[in-house]
């Protein structure tokens, strides 16, 4: 069984960049779902089995911080690990996310930053041996 990932970002280009990076990371990938804002992200979480959420912060309709807060308030969803990939530069907001157990990757990112953070969060065992 592969890892199912939800990518939440209002930029289709950024979703595509993250998707491509994940596909090349050596992760044993299942399905990749996409959402353009936090509300769409919550809907995707309710309708699909998701193992990892990768979300932006600044998005229309519902931002990533609120989406994660709502996700973690739902018993069946709160254990899903989340990584925020954002331009966010506020130490206060990053600390707030870290206290929720959320990992943070700053844009612009390198493919290695995404791969290593996913590996830290999910463990080496969900990566193909060649990627260890």
């Amino acid at each position: 069984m592969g890892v199912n990932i939800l990518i939440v970002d209002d930029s289709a280009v950024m979703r595509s960049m993250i998707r491509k990076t994940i596909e090349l990371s050596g992760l044993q990938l299942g399905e990749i779902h996409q959402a353009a804002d936090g509300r769409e992200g919550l809907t995707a979480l309710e309708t699909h089995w998701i193992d990892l959420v990768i979300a932006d912060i600044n998005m229309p309709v519902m931002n990533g911080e609120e989406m994660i807060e709502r996700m973690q308030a739902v018993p069946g969803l709160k254990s899903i690990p989340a990584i925020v990939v954002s331009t966010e530069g506020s130490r206060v907001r990053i600390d707030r996310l870290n206290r929720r157990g959320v990992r943070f990757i700053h844009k612009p990112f390198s493919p290695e930053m995404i791969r290593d953070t996913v590996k830290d969060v999910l463990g080496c065992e969900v990566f193909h041996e060649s990627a260890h």
Partner: protein
Amino acid sequence: MNRPTSELLTGVVVDTLEKMAFLFAFSQEANGSGAVTEPLETAEVSFCGPCSGRLQFGLSASVMTELAGNMLGAEDTATLSIEEQHDALKELVNVICGNLLPAIGGQEAEFSIGSPQIVGAAQPPLGPAAVESRLTLEGGICRAAIELGECRLTGAGVGKGQNVKGHMG
């Protein structure tokens, strides 16, 4: 006050172009080149928080396909749509803004960045006091400009605790 912030803007733009789109840009002033003479594809983002304002980033139309192609890892840039090119430009201005604001407002400052938009004829131009950076790339040019409203700045580019009223210039 203007010059250090222009340098800051240039630094963030160069770094972002290089890391996100593998485009290498050089200051036009360093090259001794003149002002922007060609129409640029331009995206704008507004922000609010300790400072409010707008940031614009414009790029030669001739470089738009390369920008989107590099960001998307597309092998055939001829198939990229105008929408994909504009989306790439909007994401670029978003990242430039996100990386610039902490340098202006400090690491503790919380800003809200709006959704980037492609600048059309309806958008009012930035004021003459906006801080600007002009750069040369292979095959084109780019221009970044930021206009600040009233704010209290403590970060790089200005003195600690200095209050800036009106547009920065």
